[in-house]
């Protein structure tokens, strides 16, 4: 409330609490704002499953995320790869994983399972055979850990 020095009454609302609240709200929205940094392609409509488990965050580095659209094409860095290019990409990725492990002195011999988890984000309308093709291709490259993504609950 304003003071009265020389007869003139000055009514000044105290803005500070309002500003505090506004900044807190801004902070909240900034924290939850995601600039799709992860490889979550919005073109993929995931199926819904009630008993999926939430993803553990600690293994974020050790994941290879494969987005597969409804026609079975691999969505990779914004590009649509047909099956041949996708297989080539998977080979490259497995080589990169091995190289990375070698650098970290945790070398995995050829034919031995890789510790990386392959995360499948496949469209709900893609035929099983397409997904299975990627699964077997990954297995051939030495990946054994898989995760199939789905939406939890109705969404």
């Amino acid at each position: 409330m304003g003071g009265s020095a020389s007869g003139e009454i000055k009514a000044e609302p105290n803005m500070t609490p309002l500003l505090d609240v506004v900044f807190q709200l801004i902070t909240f929205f900034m924290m939850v704002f995601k600039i799709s940094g992860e490889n979550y392609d919005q073109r993929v409509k995931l199926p819904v499953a009630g008993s999926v488990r939430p993803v553990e965050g600690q293994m974020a580095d050790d994941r290879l995320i494969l987005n597969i659209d409804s026609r079975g094409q691999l969505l990779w860095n914004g590009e649509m790869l047909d099956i041949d290019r996708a297989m080539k990409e998977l080979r490259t990725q497995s080589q990169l994983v091995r190289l990375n492990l070698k650098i970290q002195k945790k070398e995995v011999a050829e034919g031995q399972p890789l510790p990386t988890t392959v995360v499948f984000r496949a469209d709900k309308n893609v035929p099983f055979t397409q997904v299975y093709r990627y699964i077997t291709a990954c297995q051939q490259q030495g990946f054994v850990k898989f995760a199939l993504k789905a939406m939890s609950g109705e969404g």
Partner: protein
Amino acid sequence: MKKMKHEEVEVQITPMLDMAFQLLTFFILTFRPMPTEGQFSMNLLPSAPSIDITQTDQKTDQNDSSDTPAMLRTLTVQLRSNLDGTLAQMSIGENDFPTLDLLKSRLKEIVADKTLPFDQAVIQSDPGLKYEDLMRVIDVFAGPEVGITKLSFSELSGI
């Protein structure tokens, strides 16, 4: 600044508040809560060969079949699809289940029966089955009522 009199310095808070409100408006308008995604984790060893649907016995194994106990512990479920890719029928051995509820109740019986050793399953699916419907079946297996989480897949080679 030459005045030596007592001068009150007022910080203009209004522009800052304007900016703050604009930022707030932006974030509120662009706020789209990310739908929560979950996942089914599984270890799939290489490599399950395609299985001919004409084989009626339940030998499916994914590894070299030297590990007989693992084979005996493996429940094989076959999924058949309609032409449009939707789930038509599920079978365990000779038994057919037209709906997921029936499959679920059978699986619950199997799990409840302690004389049956099944703790893992192979899902053999028609190539054309929609991933969505496959997920519904996986959901039944991995759900709390059945709780078989060791799953692997193979493709039915015949229709």
